[in-house]
Structures are given as C-alpha cells and as structure tokens.
C-alpha cells in the first residue's frame, strides 16, 4: 500500500461546459508524505482532490491526462481502494438520518461489532458514549472526527482532506489538527487542501499552489508567522455596555457581559463558536432583545430595540454583519446601498448623496465606478468594503463588526483589517471586532475573551494571546481559557442540542464528560 509514488497525477485536463477547470495538473504524493494544496477560491483544488478519488462532479468532463493511485488508474470512475476522504463540511458529510454507531458499523464496506466501533471512535479520540448520537447532536469538532473515523474505517494509506477545518472554531480546529498530526506520524499520507497557507504550512511536508487550474508552485512550506501588536491605551470611552444578558427563549446565552471601547480603540471579542459573540454584537446593535438598557454610546443610553432608538443614536452605532454576501442586497447596486443610509440617517439626497457616496468609496479604497455595480460583480473583499462604507455613511462613533473577515482569503482579510486600523487612528472611531480567529484578534488593541457567555479574559493582546502555540496555531493559554468545563461546573452535563442557525457550525455550549480526553 505504501509504495513510493502513491499518487501520480499527470497533465490532467478537466472541463466544465467548454471551460477548462484543470489545465494540465501534475501532482505527486509519496507514501507517508503530507502534501498541502493551496490556492484562491475556484482555482480547482476540490476538483483535483476529487479526481484523485476517481470522482468527477456532475458537469465536469475528463479531457486528457491520467491519475494513478497506488499504480492503478482511477479515472474515469474507478475509485481507488485504501483512500479515505474527508470533506470540507463535516456537518453536511455525515448522514443526518443515522446514528454514529449505525454509520460506523458498516463503514468502509466492512461490518464491525460494538467493540470495533468503539475502537474506531477511540482512534479519533472520541468516547464510546457518542455512538448513540445523531450527527446534529455533535459539536463541529466531534462531527469532523466522526467523519475522520469513517474515512479511517477503510484503513487508508492516503487521506484526502478538503479544507477540513474551515467551518470549525478555534477549539475544534486544534483538536482536528492534533488528530491529523498523529495520523501523519503513523505514516498515513495526506493530501490536504486549504486556502490558508500559514496554517497548512505547519502541518505538511510540502505545499503545492494552484491557480486557475494550474500548479504554479511547489516546495517546502514557510514557517508560520504570528505577529502581536499593541498600541497605546486610549482616552475617552465611546461605547460602554455592562451586564448584558441575552438569550433565545428560555436559553440564556450571555450571562452579564461587560464591554467598553474607547475612541480610536479596536477591541476584539474572541471566543469559540456558539459562545454568544454574534448575540452580543446584535444586542449592541439593538437587533436582539436584551434584558435591560445596558448600552451607552458617548454617555447616552440606547434603547434595546434599534427601531426605538433615535436617528442620531442609530447613526452613532453601526453594525457590520458577518457575511459580505448576505450583508448586501444582491439585486441592489452599491449606489442604492450607500444612498439609503445617507437619506435616512443624514438626510442627504440627489447630488449631495452622490458626492458623499463617492467620498465614502474612496475612503474604503474603491473607485467611484463601483457605485453602479451589483454585489455579484464585486469580489469578496470589495463587498466587505462596501458594507463598511455603508456603515460609515452614518458617521458612526462605534462600529460593531461581526466576523467581517471570516469569509475572505488572507490577502483581502489583511486589507480590510488595515482599513479598520486606519479609520480608528484617523477618526477616533471605536471598533468592536467579533471573531473566532486568533490571527484577526491579534490585530486589535485589546482582546476580550468570551466563553459560555462570560468574559473570561480582558486585556492587551500580548497578555491574552501570548505563550506556546499548539498545532494549528492556537495559543495553549487560550485553549485553557476557553475550556468551559473549568469555567462553570453547574451547567456541566447539559449538552446544548439547539440546532445551529448555520449547519456548518454546530458546537455544544458545554463540553461534557465525553469531550475529548486529548492525546
């Protein structure tokens, strides 16, 4: 199984409806080697990975080239044996209609008994008690590991991993990275796709870069970069919130969160998935009902419901939502997106509004022509800038940004974060940066760490994020902070099974006894 030259892709050309998707890809994976593939979105990473599995998605046709796995051709449609596959989205990969045990009993085409299933779970670091659950009753990390267990059920010599951690929060990501590291150590070859070269670099032997369906670079990875910045402490406080309590129905998500932001200060709110970061941001924005009037901007108390806030209050606190593709109306041009707040919050119309819109676009680094385009005609980074411009149109004092960079590739992400930094410095704008990404948090002035709806740390970036790095680039100190079993013993044992609003990110609010015993 582990003969040299495990995977040989030679001059592979795949087309989709006349368009070339893969244009002469050449790729080798040796037995036991870990190869990473990076590239921009749409560059053909997934298509390559699936080709290695002998699978072409509907609409893709094989034009030329060969793919051999363990010496046997796999294209077209002859899936190799002994190759495990782990998809991008663990939540969607698992059969939602079967329990973990039912799936694992027959996984890999072999029947196994109870002990066999438990052993398989053990291999990926999961307790046997999980076997009775359905996929939606698992956290994202647990789902990912069950999927891994299914892939391992074939006893593969090669694992094909397609962005296995994109949907996961810091904790789950660290867990998965740990598992993969141990597999790699056990001699399983990995073909690992990601769009984040820095994270991948720490985990593979060799990195291949794909662009427009072609392999453009190949070589050993560069070491991880991790910069911690900290600026001077700010003066006057623009946003102050104290004792924020909020939840959904009877479930309480925020248990008295305090937050203050100074003028020109960037405060990152960091936390695992499902800890209530978005809820917090929405309470601040007046979009989610909160228990009491707990938010003040420049000393003035804001009504908990945005519709009951005065016009200047609405303008003073602006909220930039998570996904740039959802934040803009797909059928409205950028001009409309900017004109509406100008008209409603600043009473600008016609030529005055046009001029102001152009100025806003310039501020966020976009050309004035952008005004006529639809969101679909913009790149992700451009879209995010338009959202920012729309928020800035109100001339806010505070900007609450919810994961504004999570959907962006590293280059665009840095540009957007840079822009925010500039705005803080120039206009004294206070920024709340909600994120689950440590690297994003590292660009702020101060970090507030949220776990289980409690603030568990609040301080300058180096204090909170310093220390050793775990595989996957997560500071070990932070992992300690986020482990909630330490935080509140009273809620132990009640696993939150509220279906997440986004299927990809399902995480338990409390990790109970059957959480990974790590290692």
């Amino acid at each position: 199984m582990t003969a040299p030259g495990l995977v040989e892709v030679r001059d592979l050309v795949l087309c989709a409806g006349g368009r070339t998707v893969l244009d002469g890809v050449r790729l080798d994976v040796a037995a036991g080697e870990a190869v990473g593939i990076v590239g921009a979105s749409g560059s053909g990473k997934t298509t390559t990975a699936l080709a290695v599995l002998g699978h072409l998605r509907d609409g893709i046709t094989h034009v030329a080239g060969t793919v051999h796995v363990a010496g046997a051709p796999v294209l077209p449609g002859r899936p190799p044996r002994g190759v495990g596959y782990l998809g991008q989205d663990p939540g969607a990969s698992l059969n939602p209609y079967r329990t973990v045990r039912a799936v694992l009993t027959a996984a890999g085409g072999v029947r196994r008994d109870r002990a066999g299933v438990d052993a398989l779970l053990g291999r990926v670091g999961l307790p046997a008690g999980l076997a009775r659950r359905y996929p939606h009753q698992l956290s994202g990390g647990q789902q990912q590991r069950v999927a891994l267990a299914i892939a391992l059920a074939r006893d593969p010599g090669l694992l094909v991993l397609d962005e296995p951690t994109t949907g996961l929060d810091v904790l789950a990501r660290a867990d998965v990275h740990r598992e993969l590291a141990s597999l790699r150590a056990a001699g399983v070859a990995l073909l690992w796709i990601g769009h984040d070269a820095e994270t991948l670099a720490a985990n593979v032997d060799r990195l291949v870069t794909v662009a427009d369906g072609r392999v453009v670079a190949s070589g050993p990875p560069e070491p991880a970069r991790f910069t911690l910045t900290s600026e001077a402490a700010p003066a006057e406080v623009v946003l102050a919130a104290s004792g924020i309590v909020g939840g959904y129905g009877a479930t309480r998500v925020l248990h008295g969160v305090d937050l203050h932001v100074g003028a020109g200060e960037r405060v990152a709110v960091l936390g695992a998935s499902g800890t209530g970061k978005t809820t917090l941001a929405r309470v601040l924005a007046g979009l989610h009902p909160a228990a009491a009037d707990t938010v003040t901007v420049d000393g003035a108390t804001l009504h908990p419901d945005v519709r009951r806030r005065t016009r200047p209050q609405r303008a003073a606190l602006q909220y930039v939502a998570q996904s740039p593709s959802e934040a803009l109306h797909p059928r409205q041009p950028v001009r409309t997106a900017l004109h509406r707040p100008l008209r409603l919050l600043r009473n600008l119309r016609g030529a005055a509004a046009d001029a102001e819109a152009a100025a806003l676009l310039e501020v966020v680094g976009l050309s004035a022509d952008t005004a006529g385009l639809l969101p679909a005609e913009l790149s992700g980074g451009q879209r995010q800038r338009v959202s920012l411009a729309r928020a800035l149109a109100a001339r806010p004092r505070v900007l609450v940004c919810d994961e504004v960079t999570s959907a962006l590739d590293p280059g665009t992400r840095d540009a957007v974060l840079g822009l925010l930094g500039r705005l803080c410095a120039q206009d004294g704008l206070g920024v709340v940066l909600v994120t689950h990404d440590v690297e994003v948090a590292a660009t702020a002035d101060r970090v507030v760490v949220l776990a289980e709806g409690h603030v568990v740390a609040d301080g300058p970036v180096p204090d909170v994020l310093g220390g050793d790095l775990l595989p996957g680039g997560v500071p070990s100190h932070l992992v300690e902070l986020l482990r909630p079993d330490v935080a509140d013993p009273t809620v132990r044992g009640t696993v939150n099974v509220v279906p997440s609003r986004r299927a990809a990110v399902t995480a338990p609010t409390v990790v109970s006894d059957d959480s990974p015993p790590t290692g």
Partner: protein
Amino acid sequence: MIRLVAGRLATGAALLVLLSLLVFVGVDLLPGDAANARLGASATPARLAETRQRLGLDRPVLVRYADWAGGLLRGDLGTSVSGTPVSAILGGRVANSALLAGLTTILLVPISLVVGMWAGLRPGSRRDRGVAVASLLFVAAPEFVTAGLLVLVFAIGLGVLPAVSLIPPGAGPLDRPAALVLPVLALLLLHASYAVRMIRATIAATVRAPHVEFARLNGEPPRDVVRHAVLPAVLPVALQVWLLTAAALVGGTVLVERVFGYPGIGEVLVTAVRTGDLPVAQALVMVLGAGVVVALLAADVGVRLSTPTLRTAEQPAPVAFR
C-alpha cells in the same frame, strides 16, 4: 410531541368552527335558497313562503347557525331540506369515499416511491425524462377524461371491468372489488403522477447531497448508500406528499365518483351545494375539513418522526441521562 398534537388539534377545531360560520353565512347569502331548489317549477310565491317557514328559512341566519351548532354539539347533524336526517344521507357514503381515497393512497405509496426512485436515481437519464413527461401528461389531463377513457377501453371495449359501481344495498364496495378498480386507477394516474414528480425531484437532489457523496467516496456500497442515505432523506418529503395527496383526496374524489356512479359523497356534495341544502353542506364541510386537519397533522408528525433533527429537538442528547 403530545403537546404538539393536542395543540394542533385544538387549533384545527377552532378553525373548523370559524369555517362552519363562514360557510353557513356565505351559503345563506347566495341567491336562491333551499326552498326554491326544492320546489322548482312549482315554486309559487305562496308555496315558497310556506316552505320557507316550514324549513325555518325565515329566521335570521345567525339563529339558524346557533341552532345547527347546538345540534352538532349534541351529535345531531340536523335534517336535510329534503326531510331526511343528514346522518342518514352521509352514513355509509363518507366511508365509501374514504375507502376510495384510502385505497388510492395505499397504492400510491409504493408506486410513487418505486417509480420516483427508478427515475430519480439517474437524474437526466432517458428513463428519468420519460417518467417526467409521462407524469406531466397525466397531471395535465383532468381525471374525468382519464376515467372516461378507462371506461371506454376496459369496460365497453374489453368488457373486463364494470363501467359503473353498482353496490347492492347492505353491501360495501369491498364486496364488489371489481367495481373499485377503475375509479382507483383513474385517481391513481393523476395523484401518483404528482407524487412521482415530487419524489423524483427530491431523490435527484439527494443523490447529489454532500453526505451521499461522502459515503460513496468512502467506499460504501451503492445499495447501502441508497438504503441508508438516500431513502431516509426522501422519506419526510414523500410522507408530506402522500399525506397531502390523501388530504386532497378527501373530497377530491367527486369527479371520478360521478363518472362511475360510485356511492360516495361526491354526488351529495354537488347536490347539497347546488341546491343550497345547508345542513348537508355544513356537515360535509365539517367532516371533510376534519379529515384534512388530521391528514395535515399526520404529515407534520410523520415528518417530525422521520427527521432526526426534529425528533430529538425536544429531548436531551441520549448521553446526558447517564
């Protein structure tokens, strides 16, 4: 789950009450009334007035409604304007129509599932397109036209099946099963076609779902993929379609019943509405409405039970009890 069912039944009952009031007042507002219909050409004004008085039609509509509702609470469906108690008119007929609807549904389930799977597992294939077009054609043709053609071929042409549903007194349709074949077939062609279309589409979409792709790419045998990953995904949708079809069949057998002279509620329904026979129309609205409420509730419960995310939503994860 029990709370859901109880709650939904209560809402359903409330809606039925609202509905009965709407229908009662609405039908009363129609031009002409039962006295007119009853007397026909012999409806001289004097006789008309007397008949109205005898039937109580001269009283205000709300008083009559209250009367009717009171009777209903005591289990009395009232008396048709023809003088016959409504319960005697409806009696076995509701059961006969339910039999027709039930048989159709029972046959519809396996047929639509098998044909839908057969087509949907190979989306875009020749057989898939064939099924799609054929089902469309059957959906587009009114069932009484289909039924008429069936009679022409199987009863008059080949003489193998009865053209009309003659059920002797004291017997039920099940005592003459041959009489059920053509009516059920006519209903089936229409409704199964619809179900096949829906199920086919769901299967075609499920086959491309990530969890199916994942299972396949990790070497699960095709038969197991269909059994474990495709079918369970289709079941909630199919259940909805089946039960909604059953709901549509409640009172939807009218046209076919008429073609075959089947002793169901069809003819009663048409006559009652057309002659303004309020007590009968009301009783039917209640019976059929209740049938639909139950079918819709069953659909919801079925979907809930066949979807793990919904089924487990109200209970904690299994391990939490340890």
